[in-house]
């Protein structure tokens, strides 16, 4: 009996989660009903749906890390700035720097190298200590050696002593997220060890990272365009352009003319975002470490007493957030073919809004990746519908604000509670409060 009612309430919760998205989708369909009987619904076109997925992919990737951070009752304000920084680094690593500007390494290399070193060394240390069970005396030199080898390989030095090292697509996909991870880890360590408020630590990181991005870009924040190599023109490898573009061509029939034209079906940035979503959802639901994340957000002190490695969990979530910001930066570069110090401006707020719309509580301990998925899609469809309708920018912003609040109310499931409160003349003092507390501590995924 109890199990059944749990299943029912679970279903209802899922339903309210999707209700906002459903309403928005329906609105999109209805607003674009063609005037002529032989017209077609622009909103439902394959190209349009693909484009929505493509446009949310950068914010969607950021929102995954943000979900993890917010579940631990933290916040990461630095993701937008880290994205900016990483986009500059990515663009500079991909494009051959003119030799007269730098002797042989650019500033982008100078920040990429410590990041590669840090993470390889950490991995090396973990391996020697945990897997091979070596002593600390052996682990430290092994770690350093491994780190230096990694840096050496990252530079491509075994193969070339080039005046400027140019990176491949795989190269930036591997190294740029590490730069983001290094900054995220820095915030995480400070937050975990000093017990400072995450708000202030990540705010500081947000300010520094933008400054660093401008410094690395040079000229107080130069735009670094990415050109794809073709013929004699030097530039980024062609595979990098493919990273930002859709794949799998299908034929779509235009109803009015009856002509079949090719449409690309699947955007690659969208695939990356879906991959991150899946991994994070599996981590949160299937692994003990995922449950630790909820526990830390639910009550930090209780978790500490229960033997949960609170500091490690915190460092992990901020590092992940940074890594995903770095990955989002690579996707940004692939999509817009430029790296600039303002790429991620305000993106942290979009990510936070999407997470909260998805029902993740800013108080921590409650939330899900599925909810964030819904939140991010609400954002995507909203922008798409407003753009299709040709609504001017000012009105778009007003509508967005209203919809964010509306969706958050709908997702929180408090709407009906609120109405009940209106109907009841004299609410009892004790009961709703305790129900609320129970709800907040309940974990749902």
């Amino acid at each position, binding site marked *: 009996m109890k199990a059944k009612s749990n299943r029912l309430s679970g279903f209802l919760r899922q339903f309210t989660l999707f209700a906002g998205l459903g309403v928005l989708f329906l609105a999109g369909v209805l607003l674009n009903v063609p005037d002529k009987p032989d017209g077609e619904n622009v909103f439902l076109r394959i190209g349009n749906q693909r484009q929505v997925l493509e446009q949310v992919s950068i914010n969607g990737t950021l929102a995954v890390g943000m979900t993890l951070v917010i579940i631990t009752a933290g916040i990461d304000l630095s993701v937008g700035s880290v994205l900016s920084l990483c986009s500059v680094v990515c663009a500079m690593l991909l494009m051959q720097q003119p030799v007269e500007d730098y002797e042989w390494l650019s500033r982008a290399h100078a920040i990429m190298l410590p990041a590669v070193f840090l993470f390889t060394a950490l991995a090396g*240390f973990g391996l020697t200590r945990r897997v091979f069970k070596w002593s600390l005396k052996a682990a430290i030199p092994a770690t350093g050696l491994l780190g230096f080898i990694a840096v050496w390989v990252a530079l491509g030095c075994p193969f070339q002593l080039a005046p400027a090292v140019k990176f491949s697509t795989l190269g930036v996909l591997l190294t740029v997220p590490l730069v983001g991870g290094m900054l995220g880890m820095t915030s995480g360590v400070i937050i975990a060890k000093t017990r400072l408020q995450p708000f202030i630590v990540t705010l500081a990181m947000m300010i520094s990272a933008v400054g660093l991005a401008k410094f690395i870009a040079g000229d107080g924040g130069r735009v670094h365009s990415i050109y794809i190599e073709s013929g004699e023109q030097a530039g980024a490898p062609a595979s990098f352009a493919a990273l930002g573009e859709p794949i799998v061509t299908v034929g779509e029939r235009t109803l009015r003319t009856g002509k079949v034209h090719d449409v690309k079906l699947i955007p690659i940035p969208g695939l990356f975002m879906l991959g991150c979503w899946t991994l994070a959802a599996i981590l949160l639901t299937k692994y003990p470490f995922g449950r630790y994340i909820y526990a830390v957000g639910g009550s930090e002190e209780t978790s500490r007493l229960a033997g949960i490695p609170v500091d490690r969990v915190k460092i992990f979530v901020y590092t992940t957030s940074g890594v995903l910001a770095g990955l989002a930066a690579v996707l940004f570069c692939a999509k817009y073919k430029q790296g600039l110090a303002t790429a991620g401006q305000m993106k942290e707020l979009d990510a936070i809004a999407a997470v909260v719309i998805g029902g993740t509580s800013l108080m921590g301990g409650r939330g899900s990746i599925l909810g964030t998925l819904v939140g991010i899609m609400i954002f995507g469809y909203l922008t798409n519908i407003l753009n299709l309708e040709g609504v001017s920018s000012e009105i778009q912003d007003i509508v967005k604000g209203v919809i964010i609040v509306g969706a958050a109310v709908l997702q929180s499931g408090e709407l009906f509670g609120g109405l009940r409160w209106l109907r009841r003349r004299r609410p009892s003092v004790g009961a709703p409060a305790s129900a609320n507390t129970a709800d907040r501590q309940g974990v749902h995924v």
Partner: protein
Amino acid sequence: MRTTNHPHARLRPNLTTLMRCATTLFVATALCGLSGCERKPAPEKGTPTTQPGSAKETGSAQAPGGGTDGKYLIGFSQCTVTEPWRVEFNRRLIAHAKADYAKIVDLEVLDANDKTEDQVAQMRSFIDREADAILISPKEAAGLTGVVRQAAEAGIPVIVLDRDVHFDGYTCFVGGDNKLIGRAAGMVARDMLGGEGKASGVIYELCGGLASTPGQERRDGFHEVVDKEPGLEVIGGLDCDWKLSKAKDAFQAALQANEAIDLVYAHNDPMAYGAYQAAKEAGREEEMSFIGIDSLPDEGIRWVKAGQLTATLLYPTPGEMGLDMAIKALRGEEVTKRITLPTRVFTKDNVDQGGKEISFDE
């Protein structure tokens, strides 16, 4: 190896040691990286290096506090160098000073980091050091009018560049005219779509920051011309904040919603290029023309050369003309009070010949 049911009893000290090691290594590498990095950048002479507050000098050795060897000391306070256009502005000014006036001018370029108070302080220091002439590209009119007045009253020729101040006692103002450029863009668009009186088609407009004067003027000037044409329809007009990424996203949706777009007019080149990228991904870039504004060598000119943008209009940098006027004033020649620099249009055919000047014969 101890075995225990509580793995963290074993893990915790390890974690701490690990963190310490990682931190030490990180700091060490970061230091290596930084010291290496300081050594590395060796910009060629003449390229603007823009470390905040650092003075850029051209010409031979210069002692602070006045021109050496009887040279004129000319100070220039640039409001910011975060925009590519201002980087190009400085580059051209410095190159001009080097090429034509190396023997008679010591040019000192300061960056005010987008702060009015920094710019005021820089102007004051030029006045105190009795510079022979001052060039200023003000961040805003209200906060800088006072210091421009002080300089003029101290008898120093002041050349105001790009943005005006609320005081006309300065020697000369040199700048472009965004409204005129908007009109020129309108004429280019009209001629591409059939010519005066016969033009027909759909134009999609991508606006820069509509809260800024350049954005408004580039829109208004354009509409002055195209709104007269009965055959032209202008749609869009979204505020894309001068950003390529926003313009690309907006234009992707526009491509879905509109079956026919004949021309894209963007208030700067990166936005036009973003629209081009979106159209290319949809396979529709051949159907339409793309017009942008600014014509920076690394942006608009490059994209026009590659056949990606159809045309770009020059928003001229006033540095060279400003320096010429300063020298004229110092030599006691007559100086025109207000100089509006002409715009040029660059298309694939004329980009190698330096573009074509546009005449307003209406």
